[in-house]
C-alpha cells in the first residue's frame, strides 16, 4: 500500500470537495457553471491546474537552489492535478457543450495521463532522496560485481578471495542490477514517450482553458 500513500492527501481533498458539492446539490441544486459557486469551482480548479503545470516543472529545473525534495514536489504536483481536475469537472456541472465541454474532457485526459506518467515514473530506480539513478552508475556497479565474480567463472581458483556466501550475494546483486538496467531503459523510453504526449496535452488544455476564460469574460461580462 505504500505505493499509494502519495495519493492520500489528494483523495482526501477530493472526498471533502465532493461532500461539500453533494451538500449544495441536495440543498439547492446543481450549481451551474455560471453561478457564483460554479465560477468559484472553475477558478480554483484552473489555478490548481496551473500550479500543477508550473511549480513542479520549475523545481525540477531549480538544481542550483533546490527548495524542498523532488518527492514532496511530486506529491504536490499529483495532489493539485487531481484536485484541480476534479474541481474543473464539477465546474462543468454535467454540461459538456462546445469548447467548455472539450476543456472538461481535456482535463480528464491530462489528469489520466498524469496517472500513467506517475506509474512510469515510479519504475525508474532512485536514490534515497528520490533522485533518479543514472544509467552510468548502475553500469559501473554492474561491472564491479562482474569483476568480483569473474575469478569464479574462471575455475574457482579465487575461492580464497571470496567465500560462498559472498558469491551468492554477488550473484543476487548482479541479477538485480541487470533488471534495474533493463527497467531503467524501459522507463526512460516510456517516460520520454509519455512526456512527448503529456506536455503537449497539457499545453492544449491550458490554451483551451485560457480561450474558454476569455470567451466567458467576453460574453458574460463585456457584452452585457
Amino acid at each position, binding site marked *: 500500500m505504500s505505493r499509494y500513500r502519495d495519493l492520500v492527501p489528494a483523495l482526501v481533498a477530493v472526498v471533502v470537495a465532493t461532500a461539500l458539492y453533494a451538500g449544495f446539490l441536495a440543498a439547492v441544486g446543481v450549481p451551474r*457553471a*455560471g453561478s457564483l459557486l460554479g465560477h468559484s469551482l472553475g477558478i480554483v480548479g484552473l489555478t490548481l491546474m496551473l500550479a500543477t*503545470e*508550473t511549480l513542479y*516543472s*520549475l523545481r525540477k*529545473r531549480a538544481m542550483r537552489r533546490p527548495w524542498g525534495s523532488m518527492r514532496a514536489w511530486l506529491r504536490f504536483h499529483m495532489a493539485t492535478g487531481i484536485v484541480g481536475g476534479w474541481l474543473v469537472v464539477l465546474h462543468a456541472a454535467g*454540461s459538456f*457543450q*462546445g*469548447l*467548455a465541454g472539450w476543456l472538461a474532457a481535456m482535463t480528464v485526459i491530462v489528469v489520466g495521463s498524469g496517472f500513467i506518467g506517475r506509474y512510469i515514473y515510479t519504475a525508474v530506480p532512485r536514490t534515497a532522496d528520490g533522485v533518479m539513478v543514472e544509467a552510468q552508475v548502475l553500469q559501473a556497479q554492474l561491472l564491479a560485481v562482474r569483476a568480483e565474480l569473474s575469478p569464479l567463472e574462471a575455475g574457482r581458483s579465487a575461492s580464497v578471495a571470496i567465500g560462498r556466501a559472498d558469491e551468492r550475494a554477488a550473484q543476487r546483486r548482479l541479477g538485480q542490477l541487470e533488471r534495474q538496467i533493463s527497467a531503467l531503459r524501459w522507463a526512460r523510453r516510456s517516460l520520454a514517450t509519455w*512526456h*512527448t504526449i503529456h*506536455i*503537449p*496535452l*497539457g*499545453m*492544449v488544455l*491550458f*490554451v*483551451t482553458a485560457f*480561450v*474558454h476564460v476569455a*470567451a466567458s469574460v*467576453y*460574453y458574460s461580462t*463585456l*457584452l*452585457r
Partner: protein
Amino acid sequence: MARPLGCLTGSALIAAGLASAAILAIAVATGNGVFSPGELSAARGTTRGGVASHAELGTRCDACHAPIWSGDRMADRCRACHTEVATEIATRSGLHGTIAGADDCRDCHTDHRGPNASLTVVDLARFPHDQMGFSLQAHSVSIASGATTCEACHPGSLSTFAVASCAACHQRLDATYLAAHEADFGTSCLACHDGLETYGKGFAHATFPLTGGHGGRACAACHHGATTLVALKDAPTACVTCHLSDDIHAGRLGTACADCHTPASWSGASLDHAATGFALTGGHASPTCDACHPAGRFAGTPTTCIGCHKADDAHNGSFGTDCGACHKATTWSDVTFDHAKSGFALTGAHATASCQQCHIGGVFTAIPTACVACHPRPASHTTGFSNTCQSCHTTRAWTPATFNGPHSFPMSHGGAGGVCSTCHPSTFAAWTCTACHSTASMAAQHSGVSGYSATGCIRCHPTGSGGD
C-alpha cells in the same frame, strides 16, 4: 544550457499553436458557436427577427450577443425582437414596465440551458411579486410540493396566470369552504385577494369592526354578491341596509339604529330618552317601555300628561288637561298648585284651610269666590251690611274688621273712636245710647219733651248733637 520549462519546449509550443489554430478555425466555422455553453431554447413563439425560437438562430450568436464594437448591449438585441416588451418598459406598463428597466432582461431571462428549459429563471426570494399586485407572503409554501414554485400558479407561462391553480390547492385545504366561498364571491380570486392575509384569518376588518353579533358571520351575509375588491369595500355600513327586516319598529323610529342599539344584541337597547324631547324623570324612569309604548309602538307616542294619564285623572277632567300645572313627574301627590292662578289666592286663613273645606265633594270647578258663598252671614250682620264682607274683613281673620261706613250716625260720637261696641254692645243691628247717657239722667233732662222715649234718641238726635 538549462532545459526550458515543459510548457516552453518545442512540442509544447507546437501543440499550443495547433490548439489555438484549431479553436480559431472552429470558432470561425461555427460562428463562435463553439463558445456556446449549451443548446438554445426551442420553445416556439411569435416569429420575430425571422425566427420563431432561439434555437432557430443556430450559430448566429451576434443576434443576441452584439459584437463589442457595435455599441449595442444584449438588452438592446432582446428589445429589438421583443418589441412588445420594449413598449411595456418604455411606457412603464404591464409586467415588464412594472418590474424591469431597459437593461434588466438578464435578471430574469437566460438561455443556453437546453431546448426544453425555461427562458425565465426567477429567484422567488428576490422577485418583486408584490408589484404584480399579488404578494407571495402567504404563499411561500405550497400544499402540493413544499416550497412554492412559479409553475404552481403559472403552469403554462410565467407571463400568464391560471386562476384555476388557486382552486387546485385551496380545494385540498378546505373543499367545503372553497365551494361556499366560490358560491358567494365567484371564482375570480384575484379580484379581491392580493396574496397577503388581507382577507384571510388575519384580516382586521378595521373599517367595520366585527364585534358582537357581527363576529363569526359568513362574509357573504353582509357582502352580498360582491365579486370584486371594489364591491367588497362598497359594502354598506348602515344598520338598516342589512337589518331592515329585523326592525321591530317597522321604520317608525327612523334608521339610526345605533342611537339605541349596539352590535352586541338587539335587546338591551340604551336610549337617551331626553333626546326624544321627553326625558324620563321621576315616575317615568322606572316603568317598562311597554307602559308608554304598548305593542312596540314608539312613533306618535303622546308627550302630554293626559295623553297617557287620562284614566288616572282624579279630577275627572275638571282641571283640564294641563296636569303639569300642578303635578310633578315624581308622583301624583307631589303637587305644587299656585292657587292664585285660579283667580283666588289662598291668603290668610285660606292658606291653611284644607282643600275639602272649599272644594266639597272634590268639586274644583265653578267654586264661587264670594265670601258669602262659604261664609254665612253671622247673626250680628243680619241687617245693615252688604255681602261684600271684604269691605270690612280680611282673609286673615274675621276680627278685627275695619268698618268705614257709610254709618248714618257719626262714628266718632262721644269719643267712640270707631269702637263699635260702644254703641253696639251686643249686635250691630241694635244700638244703645244709655251706656253713656243713663236712662235716669236722660229722663230727667227730657221731662218736658213730649213723646220722649229712652230708645228713640235718634229720632230727635240723628247726628248725636244736642241741638238736633
